[in-house]
Protein backbone atom coordinates (compact mmCIF):
# COMPACT_ATOMS: atom_id res chain seq x y z
CA UNK A 1 0.00 0.00 0.00
CA UNK A 2 1.17 3.44 -0.92
CA UNK A 3 -0.28 4.85 2.28
CA UNK A 4 1.72 3.08 4.93
CA UNK A 5 5.28 4.07 4.10
CA UNK A 6 7.93 2.74 6.43
CA UNK A 7 8.55 6.24 7.79
CA UNK A 8 4.93 6.59 8.87
CA UNK A 9 4.91 3.25 10.63
CA UNK A 10 8.21 4.12 12.26
CA UNK A 11 6.89 7.44 13.56
CA UNK A 12 3.62 5.86 14.74
CA UNK A 13 5.39 3.15 16.71
CA UNK A 14 8.05 5.42 18.18
CA UNK A 15 6.66 8.95 18.13
CA UNK A 16 9.25 11.71 18.50
CA UNK A 17 9.09 14.06 21.48
CA UNK A 18 5.90 12.40 22.74
CA UNK A 19 4.49 13.15 26.20
CA UNK A 20 3.07 16.24 27.89
CA UNK A 21 5.69 18.51 29.41
CA UNK A 22 5.93 21.72 31.41
CA UNK A 23 6.16 24.62 31.08
CA UNK A 24 3.72 25.55 28.33
CA UNK A 25 2.05 28.72 27.15
CA UNK A 26 -0.99 27.05 25.64
CA UNK A 27 -2.63 23.65 25.72
CA UNK A 28 -5.28 22.50 23.25
CA UNK A 29 -7.30 19.34 22.82
CA UNK A 30 -8.52 18.42 19.34
CA UNK A 31 -10.62 15.44 18.27
CA UNK A 32 -11.61 13.92 14.98
CA UNK A 33 -15.33 13.31 15.52
CA UNK A 34 -15.43 10.71 12.74
CA UNK A 35 -13.33 8.19 14.56
CA UNK A 36 -12.71 9.64 17.99
CA UNK A 37 -9.00 10.26 17.49
CA UNK A 38 -7.67 12.76 20.01
CA UNK A 39 -4.60 14.87 20.48
CA UNK A 40 -3.65 17.03 23.45
CA UNK A 41 -0.89 19.43 22.51
CA UNK A 42 1.17 21.89 24.52
CA UNK A 43 3.28 24.70 23.19
CA UNK A 44 6.10 26.59 24.85
CA UNK A 45 7.47 29.67 23.10
CA UNK A 46 10.73 31.52 23.61
CA UNK A 47 10.23 35.23 23.03
CA UNK A 48 13.93 36.11 23.45
CA UNK A 49 14.35 35.73 19.68
CA UNK A 50 11.53 38.19 19.06
CA UNK A 51 7.78 38.65 19.30
CA UNK A 52 5.08 37.04 17.23
CA UNK A 53 6.38 35.08 14.29
CA UNK A 54 9.96 35.69 15.40
CA UNK A 55 9.47 33.76 18.62
CA UNK A 56 11.04 30.32 18.80
CA UNK A 57 9.18 27.13 19.49
CA UNK A 58 11.06 25.94 22.55
CA UNK A 59 8.94 22.84 23.09
CA UNK A 60 5.98 21.12 21.51
CA UNK A 61 4.74 18.24 23.63
CA UNK A 62 1.70 16.08 22.98
CA UNK A 63 -0.32 13.03 23.80
CA UNK A 64 -1.94 11.43 20.75
CA UNK A 65 -4.54 8.69 20.69
CA UNK A 66 -5.46 7.54 17.24
CA UNK A 67 -4.60 5.78 14.02
CA UNK A 68 -1.08 5.39 12.70
CA UNK A 69 -1.52 8.36 10.37
CA UNK A 70 -2.59 10.80 13.07
CA UNK A 71 0.05 9.68 15.58
CA UNK A 72 2.84 9.70 13.01
CA UNK A 73 1.78 13.11 11.78
CA UNK A 74 1.97 14.54 15.31
CA UNK A 75 5.41 12.99 15.65
CA UNK A 76 6.65 14.58 12.41
CA UNK A 77 5.15 17.89 13.49
CA UNK A 78 7.06 17.84 16.76
CA UNK A 79 10.28 16.85 15.04
CA UNK A 80 9.97 19.48 12.30
CA UNK A 81 8.96 22.58 14.26
CA UNK A 82 10.73 22.31 17.61
CA UNK A 83 13.63 24.76 17.80
CA UNK A 84 12.38 26.68 14.78
CA UNK A 85 10.80 30.11 14.64
CA UNK A 86 7.04 30.46 14.45
CA UNK A 87 7.50 31.84 10.93
CA UNK A 88 9.37 28.74 9.79
CA UNK A 89 6.87 26.47 11.52
CA UNK A 90 3.96 28.14 9.77
CA UNK A 91 5.72 27.77 6.43
CA UNK A 92 6.18 24.07 7.18
CA UNK A 93 2.49 23.82 8.05
CA UNK A 94 1.52 25.58 4.83
CA UNK A 95 3.66 23.19 2.76
CA UNK A 96 2.31 20.17 4.60
CA UNK A 97 -1.25 21.38 4.22
CA UNK A 98 -0.79 22.08 0.51
CA UNK A 99 0.56 18.58 -0.07
CA UNK A 100 -2.16 16.87 1.94
CA UNK A 101 -4.98 18.70 0.21
CA UNK A 102 -3.53 18.33 -3.30
CA UNK A 103 -5.37 15.04 -3.97
CA UNK A 104 -2.02 13.52 -4.79
CA UNK A 105 -0.79 16.25 -7.18
CA UNK A 106 1.80 17.71 -4.81
CA UNK A 107 4.51 15.17 -3.89
CA UNK A 108 5.77 17.41 -1.09
CA UNK A 109 9.10 19.19 -0.67
CA UNK A 110 11.48 17.36 1.64
CA UNK A 111 13.43 20.55 2.31
CA UNK A 112 10.24 22.18 3.61
CA UNK A 113 8.56 19.35 5.49
CA UNK A 114 11.24 16.72 6.16
CA UNK A 115 9.69 13.34 7.01
CA UNK A 116 6.33 14.92 6.17
CA UNK A 117 6.88 13.81 2.55
CA UNK A 118 6.04 10.28 3.67
CA UNK A 119 2.44 11.49 3.94
CA UNK A 120 2.14 12.30 0.22
CA UNK A 121 0.17 9.08 -0.27
CA UNK A 122 -2.39 10.16 2.33
CA UNK A 123 -3.57 12.91 -0.01
CA UNK A 124 -5.10 10.26 -2.27
CA UNK A 125 -7.40 9.14 0.54
CA UNK A 126 -9.71 12.06 1.38
CA UNK A 127 -11.02 10.33 4.51
CA UNK A 128 -7.52 10.18 5.94
CA UNK A 129 -6.42 13.76 5.29
CA UNK A 130 -8.14 14.81 8.48
CA UNK A 131 -6.14 12.20 10.39
CA UNK A 132 -2.90 13.63 9.05
CA UNK A 133 -3.92 17.21 9.82
CA UNK A 134 -5.23 16.62 13.33
CA UNK A 135 -1.97 17.41 15.11
CA UNK A 136 -1.15 20.28 12.76
CA UNK A 137 -4.50 21.98 13.26
CA UNK A 138 -4.06 21.59 17.01
CA UNK A 139 -0.64 23.22 16.60
CA UNK A 140 -1.96 26.26 14.76
CA UNK A 141 -4.75 26.56 17.31
CA UNK A 142 -2.16 26.50 20.11
CA UNK A 143 -0.19 29.22 18.30
CA UNK A 144 -3.32 31.35 18.08
CA UNK A 145 -4.00 30.83 21.76
CA UNK A 146 -0.45 31.89 22.49
CA UNK A 147 -1.28 35.22 20.90
CA UNK A 148 0.26 34.62 17.47
CA UNK A 149 -1.67 35.98 14.50
CA UNK A 150 -1.96 33.01 12.14
CA UNK A 151 -4.75 34.37 9.97
CA UNK A 152 -2.62 35.14 6.93
CA UNK A 153 -0.57 31.99 6.84
CA UNK A 154 -3.20 29.36 7.45
CA UNK A 155 -6.38 30.31 5.69
CA UNK A 156 -7.97 26.90 6.03
CA UNK A 157 -7.15 26.15 9.62
CA UNK A 158 -10.74 26.48 10.68
CA UNK A 159 -11.81 23.72 8.31
CA UNK A 160 -9.93 21.25 10.38
CA UNK A 161 -10.49 22.62 13.83
CA UNK A 162 -11.98 20.70 16.68
CA UNK A 163 -15.59 20.41 15.67
CA UNK A 164 -15.51 21.36 12.03
CA UNK A 165 -16.35 17.94 10.68
CA UNK A 166 -19.16 16.43 12.69
CA UNK A 167 -20.03 12.92 11.76
CA UNK A 168 -21.57 9.90 13.38
Amino acid sequence: MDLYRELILEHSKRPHRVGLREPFAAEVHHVNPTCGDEVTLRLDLDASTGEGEHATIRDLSYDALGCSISVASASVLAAEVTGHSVREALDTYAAMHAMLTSKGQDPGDEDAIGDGVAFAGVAKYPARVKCALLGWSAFTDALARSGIDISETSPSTSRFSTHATPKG
Partner: protein
Amino acid sequence: MVAVVAGAEPFSGSESTAIRADFPILGRTVRDGKPLVYLDSGATSHKPWVVLEAEREFYEKHNSAVHRGAHQLSEEGTELYESARATIAAFIGATADEVVFTKNATEGLNLVAYAFSNASHGGGGARGRMPQPDDEMAARFVLAPGDEVLVTEMEHHANLVPWQELCRRTGATLRWIPLTPDGRLDLTDLDDLLTDRTKVVAFTHVSNVLGTINPVREITEKAHAAGALVVLDACQSVPHLSVDVTELGVDFLAFSGHKLFGPLGIGVLWGRPELLDAMPTFLTGGSMIETVTMEGSTYAPVPQKFEAGVPMAAQAIGFAAAVDYLTELGMDRVLAHEQFLTAALLDGLAARPWVRVVGPPTAAERGATVAFVVDGVHAHDVGQVLDDQGVAVRVGHHCAWPLHRALGVAATTRASFAAYNTVGEVDALLGALDLVPAIFGLDLDSVPRAASDRQQQRDREQVTV
Protein backbone atom coordinates in the same frame (compact mmCIF):
# COMPACT_ATOMS: atom_id res chain seq x y z
CA MET B 1 -34.39 -13.95 21.89
CA VAL B 2 -34.97 -14.23 18.20
CA ALA B 3 -35.05 -17.76 16.96
CA VAL B 4 -34.55 -18.72 13.37
CA VAL B 5 -37.83 -19.97 11.97
CA ALA B 6 -37.74 -23.73 11.77
CA GLY B 7 -36.80 -24.88 8.32
CA ALA B 8 -35.58 -21.50 7.15
CA GLU B 9 -32.36 -22.04 5.22
CA PRO B 10 -29.64 -19.63 4.18
CA PHE B 11 -29.80 -18.76 0.50
CA SER B 12 -28.24 -21.37 -1.76
CA GLY B 13 -25.42 -20.52 -4.14
CA SER B 14 -27.76 -20.11 -7.08
CA GLU B 15 -30.22 -18.08 -5.04
CA SER B 16 -27.40 -15.81 -3.88
CA THR B 17 -26.26 -15.34 -7.46
CA ALA B 18 -29.77 -14.33 -8.46
CA ILE B 19 -30.14 -11.93 -5.53
CA ARG B 20 -26.78 -10.30 -6.28
CA ALA B 21 -27.81 -9.78 -9.88
CA ASP B 22 -30.71 -7.66 -8.61
CA PHE B 23 -28.26 -5.10 -7.18
CA PRO B 24 -26.44 -3.28 -9.98
CA ILE B 25 -23.76 -1.71 -7.77
CA LEU B 26 -22.49 -5.13 -6.69
CA GLY B 27 -21.14 -5.55 -10.20
CA ARG B 28 -18.69 -2.67 -9.95
CA THR B 29 -15.05 -2.79 -8.97
CA VAL B 30 -13.09 -0.58 -6.60
CA ARG B 31 -9.42 0.24 -5.90
CA ASP B 32 -7.85 -0.72 -9.21
CA GLY B 33 -10.24 -3.36 -10.43
CA LYS B 34 -10.96 -5.32 -7.29
CA PRO B 35 -14.47 -6.73 -6.90
CA LEU B 36 -16.51 -4.78 -4.38
CA VAL B 37 -17.01 -6.74 -1.16
CA TYR B 38 -19.60 -4.61 0.55
CA LEU B 39 -19.87 -5.35 4.27
CA ASP B 40 -21.28 -2.01 5.39
CA SER B 41 -25.01 -2.51 5.00
CA GLY B 42 -25.50 -1.49 8.63
CA ALA B 43 -24.52 2.02 7.51
CA THR B 44 -26.54 1.90 4.33
CA SER B 45 -27.67 -0.94 2.10
CA HIS B 46 -27.59 -1.07 -1.68
CA LYS B 47 -30.70 -0.83 -3.84
CA PRO B 48 -32.14 -3.47 -6.13
CA TRP B 49 -33.37 -2.64 -9.64
CA VAL B 50 -37.00 -2.81 -8.52
CA VAL B 51 -36.43 0.10 -6.13
CA LEU B 52 -34.54 2.17 -8.69
CA GLU B 53 -37.25 1.47 -11.24
CA ALA B 54 -40.09 2.31 -8.88
CA GLU B 55 -38.56 5.74 -8.22
CA ARG B 56 -37.83 6.28 -11.89
CA GLU B 57 -41.34 5.33 -12.90
CA PHE B 58 -42.81 7.83 -10.46
CA TYR B 59 -40.73 10.62 -11.96
CA GLU B 60 -41.40 9.49 -15.52
CA LYS B 61 -45.14 9.01 -15.24
CA HIS B 62 -46.67 10.36 -12.05
CA ASN B 63 -44.40 13.18 -10.85
CA SER B 64 -46.48 15.56 -8.78
CA ALA B 65 -46.88 17.22 -5.42
CA VAL B 66 -49.03 14.68 -3.64
CA HIS B 67 -52.01 15.70 -1.53
CA ARG B 68 -52.31 18.84 -3.65
CA GLY B 69 -54.13 19.79 -6.77
CA ALA B 70 -57.06 18.24 -8.56
CA HIS B 71 -55.19 17.11 -11.63
CA GLN B 72 -54.65 13.55 -12.64
CA LEU B 73 -50.92 13.40 -11.93
CA SER B 74 -51.45 14.53 -8.36
CA GLU B 75 -54.24 12.02 -7.93
CA GLU B 76 -52.00 9.22 -9.17
CA GLY B 77 -49.08 10.40 -7.08
CA THR B 78 -51.23 10.60 -3.96
CA GLU B 79 -52.62 7.13 -4.57
CA LEU B 80 -49.10 5.68 -4.97
CA TYR B 81 -47.77 7.53 -1.94
CA GLU B 82 -50.58 6.36 0.33
CA SER B 83 -50.42 2.85 -1.04
CA ALA B 84 -46.69 2.82 -0.21
CA ARG B 85 -47.56 3.84 3.33
CA ALA B 86 -49.98 0.90 3.62
CA THR B 87 -47.38 -1.55 2.27
CA ILE B 88 -44.74 -0.41 4.74
CA ALA B 89 -47.23 -0.39 7.62
CA ALA B 90 -48.27 -3.97 6.86
CA PHE B 91 -44.59 -5.00 6.82
CA ILE B 92 -44.35 -4.14 10.55
CA GLY B 93 -47.84 -5.35 11.45
CA ALA B 94 -49.33 -1.86 11.61
CA THR B 95 -52.04 0.08 9.80
CA ALA B 96 -51.38 2.98 7.46
CA ASP B 97 -52.69 5.74 9.74
CA GLU B 98 -50.09 4.80 12.37
CA VAL B 99 -47.15 5.34 10.03
CA VAL B 100 -45.53 8.77 9.67
CA PHE B 101 -42.95 9.33 6.96
CA THR B 102 -39.88 11.22 8.14
CA LYS B 103 -36.58 12.20 6.56
CA ASN B 104 -34.86 9.30 8.32
CA ALA B 105 -34.99 7.39 11.58
CA THR B 106 -33.09 10.19 13.32
CA GLU B 107 -35.89 12.59 12.48
CA GLY B 108 -38.47 10.07 13.70
CA LEU B 109 -36.75 9.81 17.07
CA ASN B 110 -36.41 13.59 17.25
CA LEU B 111 -40.10 13.92 16.43
CA VAL B 112 -40.97 11.96 19.57
CA ALA B 113 -38.41 13.79 21.71
CA TYR B 114 -39.76 17.13 20.46
CA ALA B 115 -43.32 15.99 21.20
CA PHE B 116 -42.27 15.77 24.85
CA SER B 117 -40.43 19.06 24.61
CA ASN B 118 -43.27 20.89 22.89
CA ALA B 119 -45.90 19.40 25.18
CA SER B 120 -43.83 20.63 28.11
CA HIS B 121 -43.76 24.14 26.65
CA GLY B 122 -47.35 24.52 25.52
CA GLY B 123 -46.94 23.38 21.91
CA GLY B 124 -50.11 23.18 19.86
CA GLY B 125 -51.60 20.39 17.85
CA ALA B 126 -52.17 17.86 20.58
CA ARG B 127 -55.51 16.12 20.50
CA GLY B 128 -56.44 16.33 16.89
CA ARG B 129 -59.68 14.87 15.70
CA MET B 130 -59.89 11.77 17.84
CA PRO B 131 -63.32 11.59 19.47
CA GLN B 132 -63.24 12.45 23.15
CA PRO B 133 -59.78 13.93 23.44
CA ASP B 134 -57.96 12.21 26.21
CA ASP B 135 -56.21 14.74 28.40
CA GLU B 136 -54.47 12.02 30.35
CA MET B 137 -52.87 10.86 27.14
CA ALA B 138 -51.60 14.35 26.31
CA ALA B 139 -50.28 14.76 29.86
CA ARG B 140 -47.98 11.78 29.38
CA PHE B 141 -45.81 13.96 27.15
CA VAL B 142 -45.30 16.75 29.68
CA LEU B 143 -41.92 16.64 31.40
CA ALA B 144 -40.92 18.64 34.45
CA PRO B 145 -37.76 18.83 36.56
CA GLY B 146 -37.50 15.60 38.51
CA ASP B 147 -39.03 13.51 35.73
CA GLU B 148 -36.75 10.94 34.19
CA VAL B 149 -35.81 9.68 30.76
CA LEU B 150 -34.22 6.24 30.61
CA VAL B 151 -31.93 5.23 27.73
CA THR B 152 -29.09 2.70 27.44
CA GLU B 153 -25.34 2.90 27.16
CA MET B 154 -25.40 1.09 23.80
CA GLU B 155 -27.49 3.67 21.95
CA HIS B 156 -26.63 5.16 18.59
CA HIS B 157 -26.25 8.93 18.99
CA ALA B 158 -29.61 9.29 17.21
CA ASN B 159 -31.35 7.69 20.18
CA LEU B 160 -29.24 9.44 22.80
CA VAL B 161 -28.56 13.05 21.86
CA PRO B 162 -32.25 13.96 21.29
CA TRP B 163 -33.02 12.72 24.81
CA GLN B 164 -30.06 14.59 26.29
CA GLU B 165 -31.34 17.74 24.65
CA LEU B 166 -34.90 17.04 25.80
CA CYS B 167 -33.66 16.73 29.38
CA ARG B 168 -31.66 19.92 29.04
CA ARG B 169 -34.72 21.80 27.80
CA THR B 170 -37.17 20.46 30.37
CA GLY B 171 -35.00 19.92 33.43
CA ALA B 172 -35.73 16.20 33.37
CA THR B 173 -32.98 13.76 34.37
CA LEU B 174 -31.35 11.36 31.92
CA ARG B 175 -30.57 7.90 33.27
CA TRP B 176 -29.23 4.89 31.45
CA ILE B 177 -29.05 1.12 31.57
CA PRO B 178 -25.37 0.07 31.62
CA LEU B 179 -23.65 -2.67 29.59
CA THR B 180 -22.37 -6.05 30.67
CA PRO B 181 -18.76 -6.86 29.67
CA ASP B 182 -19.99 -9.08 26.82
CA GLY B 183 -22.10 -6.32 25.36
CA ARG B 184 -25.58 -6.99 26.60
CA LEU B 185 -27.81 -4.64 28.56
CA ASP B 186 -27.24 -5.11 32.26
CA LEU B 187 -30.83 -5.33 33.49
CA THR B 188 -29.88 -6.18 37.07
CA ASP B 189 -30.94 -2.79 38.36
CA LEU B 190 -33.75 -2.14 35.89
CA ASP B 191 -36.36 -2.14 38.64
CA ASP B 192 -34.43 0.65 40.40
CA LEU B 193 -33.76 2.58 37.20
CA LEU B 194 -37.48 2.62 36.45
CA THR B 195 -39.29 4.88 38.88
CA ASP B 196 -42.68 6.54 39.00
CA ARG B 197 -40.91 9.58 37.55
CA THR B 198 -39.76 7.71 34.44
CA LYS B 199 -41.76 9.18 31.55
CA VAL B 200 -40.03 7.57 28.61
CA VAL B 201 -37.74 4.62 27.98
CA ALA B 202 -35.84 4.75 24.68
CA PHE B 203 -33.61 1.92 23.52
CA THR B 204 -32.42 0.05 20.49
CA HIS B 205 -33.83 -3.24 19.27
CA VAL B 206 -30.50 -4.41 17.82
CA SER B 207 -27.20 -2.68 18.60
CA ASN B 208 -25.57 -1.15 15.52
CA VAL B 209 -22.14 -2.04 16.93
CA LEU B 210 -22.44 -5.12 19.11
CA GLY B 211 -25.23 -6.77 17.15
CA THR B 212 -26.91 -7.55 20.47
CA ILE B 213 -30.63 -8.29 20.15
CA ASN B 214 -32.26 -6.70 23.18
CA PRO B 215 -35.16 -8.24 25.14
CA VAL B 216 -37.75 -5.71 23.96
CA ARG B 217 -40.78 -7.29 25.58
CA GLU B 218 -39.17 -7.68 28.97
CA ILE B 219 -38.03 -4.07 29.11
CA THR B 220 -41.29 -2.80 27.63
CA GLU B 221 -43.45 -4.64 30.13
CA LYS B 222 -41.47 -3.22 33.04
CA ALA B 223 -41.46 0.27 31.53
CA HIS B 224 -45.20 0.17 31.05
CA ALA B 225 -45.70 -1.09 34.59
CA ALA B 226 -43.80 2.01 35.73
CA GLY B 227 -46.05 4.19 33.58
CA ALA B 228 -43.44 5.11 30.99
CA LEU B 229 -43.78 5.29 27.22
CA VAL B 230 -41.43 3.12 25.17
CA VAL B 231 -39.54 4.29 22.07
CA LEU B 232 -37.69 1.66 20.05
CA ASP B 233 -34.89 2.33 17.58
CA ALA B 234 -35.52 -0.42 15.04
CA CYS B 235 -32.99 0.66 12.38
CA GLN B 236 -30.93 -2.50 12.71
CA SER B 237 -33.84 -4.89 13.21
CA VAL B 238 -36.58 -4.14 10.68
CA PRO B 239 -34.26 -4.76 7.68
CA HIS B 240 -33.02 -8.06 9.08
CA LEU B 241 -35.70 -9.87 11.03
CA SER B 242 -39.46 -10.04 11.12
CA VAL B 243 -40.81 -7.18 13.25
CA ASP B 244 -44.40 -6.89 14.44
CA VAL B 245 -45.21 -3.79 16.47
CA THR B 246 -48.08 -5.48 18.30
CA GLU B 247 -45.90 -8.39 19.31
CA LEU B 248 -43.17 -6.07 20.60
CA GLY B 249 -45.66 -4.02 22.59
CA VAL B 250 -43.73 -0.73 22.28
CA ASP B 251 -45.35 2.70 21.85
CA PHE B 252 -43.11 4.15 19.14
CA LEU B 253 -40.73 2.58 16.66
CA ALA B 254 -38.44 4.28 14.17
CA PHE B 255 -36.46 2.92 11.23
CA SER B 256 -35.05 4.14 7.95
CA GLY B 257 -35.59 3.14 4.34
CA HIS B 258 -32.01 3.24 3.15
CA LYS B 259 -30.81 0.45 5.43
CA LEU B 260 -33.57 -1.76 4.03
CA PHE B 261 -32.75 -1.65 0.30
CA GLY B 262 -34.85 1.54 0.01
CA PRO B 263 -33.91 5.08 -1.02
CA LEU B 264 -32.00 7.60 1.05
CA GLY B 265 -33.99 10.43 2.57
CA ILE B 266 -36.96 8.59 4.02
CA GLY B 267 -37.71 6.93 7.31
CA VAL B 268 -40.71 5.81 9.30
CA LEU B 269 -41.99 6.64 12.71
CA TRP B 270 -44.67 4.23 13.84
CA GLY B 271 -46.68 5.16 16.91
CA ARG B 272 -49.82 4.08 18.72
CA PRO B 273 -52.58 6.14 17.08
CA GLU B 274 -53.97 7.50 20.34
CA LEU B 275 -50.47 8.71 21.28
CA LEU B 276 -49.71 10.24 17.89
CA ASP B 277 -53.02 12.02 18.18
CA ALA B 278 -52.23 13.34 21.65
CA MET B 279 -48.80 14.68 20.62
CA PRO B 280 -48.13 18.30 19.69
CA THR B 281 -46.86 19.10 16.21
CA PHE B 282 -43.15 18.95 15.32
CA LEU B 283 -42.31 20.50 11.93
CA THR B 284 -45.03 22.85 10.81
CA GLY B 285 -46.07 24.40 7.50
CA GLY B 286 -48.04 23.27 4.47
CA SER B 287 -49.84 19.94 4.25
CA MET B 288 -50.12 19.43 7.98
CA ILE B 289 -52.82 22.01 8.68
CA GLU B 290 -56.57 21.89 8.89
CA THR B 291 -57.31 25.62 8.92
CA VAL B 292 -55.00 28.61 9.02
CA THR B 293 -55.83 32.20 9.95
CA MET B 294 -53.48 35.03 10.75
CA GLU B 295 -54.13 34.43 14.42
CA GLY B 296 -53.44 30.71 14.50
CA SER B 297 -53.94 27.28 13.00
CA THR B 298 -55.51 23.92 13.59
CA TYR B 299 -53.96 20.75 12.38
CA ALA B 300 -54.69 17.77 10.17
CA PRO B 301 -55.21 14.32 11.63
CA VAL B 302 -52.35 11.85 11.96
CA PRO B 303 -50.28 11.04 9.98
CA GLN B 304 -50.55 14.29 7.94
CA LYS B 305 -50.12 16.31 11.14
CA PHE B 306 -46.49 15.23 11.18
CA GLU B 307 -45.75 15.54 7.45
CA ALA B 308 -45.17 19.22 6.74
CA GLY B 309 -44.23 20.25 3.22
CA VAL B 310 -44.42 18.41 -0.08
CA PRO B 311 -43.86 14.73 0.79
CA MET B 312 -41.00 12.62 -0.55
CA ALA B 313 -43.30 10.54 -2.71
CA ALA B 314 -40.68 8.94 -4.94
CA GLN B 315 -38.73 7.78 -1.91
CA ALA B 316 -41.87 6.38 -0.27
CA ILE B 317 -42.69 4.45 -3.42
CA GLY B 318 -39.12 3.14 -3.65
CA PHE B 319 -39.25 2.25 0.04
CA ALA B 320 -42.43 0.22 -0.52
CA ALA B 321 -40.78 -1.56 -3.47
CA ALA B 322 -37.89 -2.47 -1.17
CA VAL B 323 -40.32 -3.85 1.41
CA ASP B 324 -42.01 -5.92 -1.29
CA TYR B 325 -38.62 -7.19 -2.41
CA LEU B 326 -37.67 -8.26 1.12
CA THR B 327 -41.07 -9.85 1.65
CA GLU B 328 -40.57 -11.87 -1.49
CA LEU B 329 -37.16 -13.05 -0.28
CA GLY B 330 -38.83 -13.99 3.01
CA MET B 331 -37.70 -12.39 6.25
CA ASP B 332 -37.20 -15.80 7.85
CA ARG B 333 -34.73 -16.71 5.14
CA VAL B 334 -33.04 -13.30 5.29
CA LEU B 335 -32.49 -13.83 9.01
CA ALA B 336 -31.27 -17.41 8.52
CA HIS B 337 -28.87 -16.29 5.80
CA GLU B 338 -27.45 -13.37 7.77
CA GLN B 339 -27.03 -15.48 10.90
CA PHE B 340 -25.22 -18.06 8.80
CA LEU B 341 -22.82 -15.35 7.60
CA THR B 342 -22.45 -13.94 11.11
CA ALA B 343 -21.59 -17.39 12.47
CA ALA B 344 -19.05 -17.91 9.68
CA LEU B 345 -17.41 -14.58 10.46
CA LEU B 346 -17.40 -15.19 14.23
CA ASP B 347 -15.76 -18.58 13.60
CA GLY B 348 -13.16 -17.05 11.32
CA LEU B 349 -12.34 -14.31 13.79
CA ALA B 350 -12.16 -16.77 16.69
CA ALA B 351 -9.39 -18.57 14.80
CA ARG B 352 -7.37 -15.34 14.86
CA PRO B 353 -6.30 -14.72 18.45
CA TRP B 354 -5.07 -11.23 17.57
CA VAL B 355 -8.65 -10.19 16.85
CA ARG B 356 -11.04 -9.40 19.66
CA VAL B 357 -14.77 -9.44 18.88
CA VAL B 358 -17.02 -7.15 20.92
CA GLY B 359 -20.55 -8.19 21.80
CA PRO B 360 -22.25 -11.55 22.34
CA PRO B 361 -20.13 -14.56 21.35
CA THR B 362 -22.64 -16.48 19.22
CA ALA B 363 -24.62 -15.67 16.10
CA ALA B 364 -27.98 -16.72 17.53
CA GLU B 365 -27.94 -13.74 19.91
CA ARG B 366 -26.97 -11.22 17.25
CA GLY B 367 -28.19 -9.15 14.41
CA ALA B 368 -26.17 -9.02 11.19
CA THR B 369 -23.33 -7.00 12.70
CA VAL B 370 -19.89 -7.96 13.98
CA ALA B 371 -17.50 -5.37 15.39
CA PHE B 372 -13.96 -6.20 16.39
CA VAL B 373 -10.66 -4.79 17.55
CA VAL B 374 -7.12 -5.65 16.49
CA ASP B 375 -5.15 -4.70 19.58
CA GLY B 376 -2.21 -2.53 18.61
CA VAL B 377 -3.70 -1.39 15.30
CA HIS B 378 -6.25 1.40 15.12
CA ALA B 379 -9.56 0.55 13.45
CA HIS B 380 -8.95 3.25 10.83
CA ASP B 381 -5.78 1.48 9.79
CA VAL B 382 -7.50 -1.92 9.73
CA GLY B 383 -10.26 -0.49 7.57
CA GLN B 384 -7.74 1.05 5.20
CA VAL B 385 -6.03 -2.28 4.59
CA LEU B 386 -9.41 -3.94 3.98
CA ASP B 387 -10.46 -1.13 1.64
CA ASP B 388 -7.27 -1.58 -0.33
CA GLN B 389 -8.46 -5.14 -1.02
CA GLY B 390 -11.92 -3.93 -2.04
CA VAL B 391 -13.53 -4.87 1.27
CA ALA B 392 -15.79 -2.07 2.51
CA VAL B 393 -16.38 -2.01 6.26
CA ARG B 394 -17.07 0.77 8.71
CA VAL B 395 -14.47 1.97 11.19
CA GLY B 396 -14.67 4.35 14.11
CA HIS B 397 -17.23 4.62 16.87
CA HIS B 398 -20.23 4.09 14.56
CA CYS B 399 -22.14 6.98 16.14
CA ALA B 400 -22.03 5.16 19.47
CA TRP B 401 -19.20 6.90 21.28
CA PRO B 402 -20.38 6.20 24.86
CA LEU B 403 -20.68 2.51 24.00
CA HIS B 404 -17.06 2.47 22.87
CA ARG B 405 -16.01 4.25 26.04
CA ALA B 406 -17.85 1.62 28.07
CA LEU B 407 -15.99 -1.09 26.16
CA GLY B 408 -12.70 0.70 26.77
CA VAL B 409 -11.83 0.97 23.09
CA ALA B 410 -11.35 4.08 20.97
CA ALA B 411 -12.80 2.60 17.82
CA THR B 412 -13.84 -0.69 16.26
CA THR B 413 -13.95 -2.21 12.79
CA ARG B 414 -17.46 -3.31 11.89
CA ALA B 415 -18.68 -5.73 9.25
CA SER B 416 -22.43 -5.80 8.67
CA PHE B 417 -24.42 -8.01 6.34
CA ALA B 418 -27.44 -7.91 4.10
CA ALA B 419 -29.23 -10.63 2.14
CA TYR B 420 -26.92 -10.12 -0.86
CA ASN B 421 -23.72 -11.05 1.00
CA THR B 422 -22.07 -14.43 0.64
CA VAL B 423 -19.79 -16.66 2.65
CA GLY B 424 -17.17 -15.99 -0.05
CA GLU B 425 -17.24 -12.37 1.04
CA VAL B 426 -16.67 -13.42 4.64
CA ASP B 427 -13.59 -15.26 3.39
CA ALA B 428 -12.48 -12.17 1.45
CA LEU B 429 -12.72 -10.11 4.63
CA LEU B 430 -10.73 -12.66 6.61
CA GLY B 431 -8.10 -12.90 3.87
CA ALA B 432 -7.69 -9.12 3.77
CA LEU B 433 -7.57 -9.00 7.55
CA ASP B 434 -4.66 -11.43 7.53
CA LEU B 435 -2.56 -8.74 5.82
CA VAL B 436 -2.87 -6.46 8.85
CA PRO B 437 -0.35 -8.04 11.25
CA ALA B 438 2.48 -7.95 8.72
CA ILE B 439 1.82 -4.39 7.56
CA PHE B 440 1.78 -3.02 11.09
CA GLY B 441 4.45 -5.31 12.48
CA LEU B 442 2.22 -6.98 15.08
CA ASP B 443 4.05 -9.44 17.25
CA LEU B 444 1.56 -12.29 17.15
CA ASP B 445 3.49 -14.31 19.74
CA SER B 446 2.78 -11.70 22.37
CA VAL B 447 -0.97 -11.60 21.80
CA PRO B 448 -2.36 -11.68 25.31
CA ARG B 449 -5.54 -13.62 24.71
CA ALA B 450 -5.30 -17.35 24.22
CA ALA B 451 -7.21 -18.52 21.18
CA SER B 452 -7.85 -21.88 22.74
CA ASP B 453 -9.73 -20.27 25.64
CA ARG B 454 -12.11 -18.55 23.32
CA GLN B 455 -12.53 -21.60 21.14
CA GLN B 456 -13.52 -23.61 24.18
CA GLN B 457 -16.07 -20.98 25.12
CA ARG B 458 -17.48 -21.06 21.61
CA ASP B 459 -17.62 -24.86 21.64
CA ARG B 460 -19.72 -24.67 24.76
CA GLU B 461 -22.10 -22.21 23.17
CA GLN B 462 -22.64 -24.21 20.03
CA VAL B 463 -23.86 -22.11 17.14
CA THR B 464 -26.81 -23.56 15.34
CA VAL B 465 -28.39 -21.81 12.44
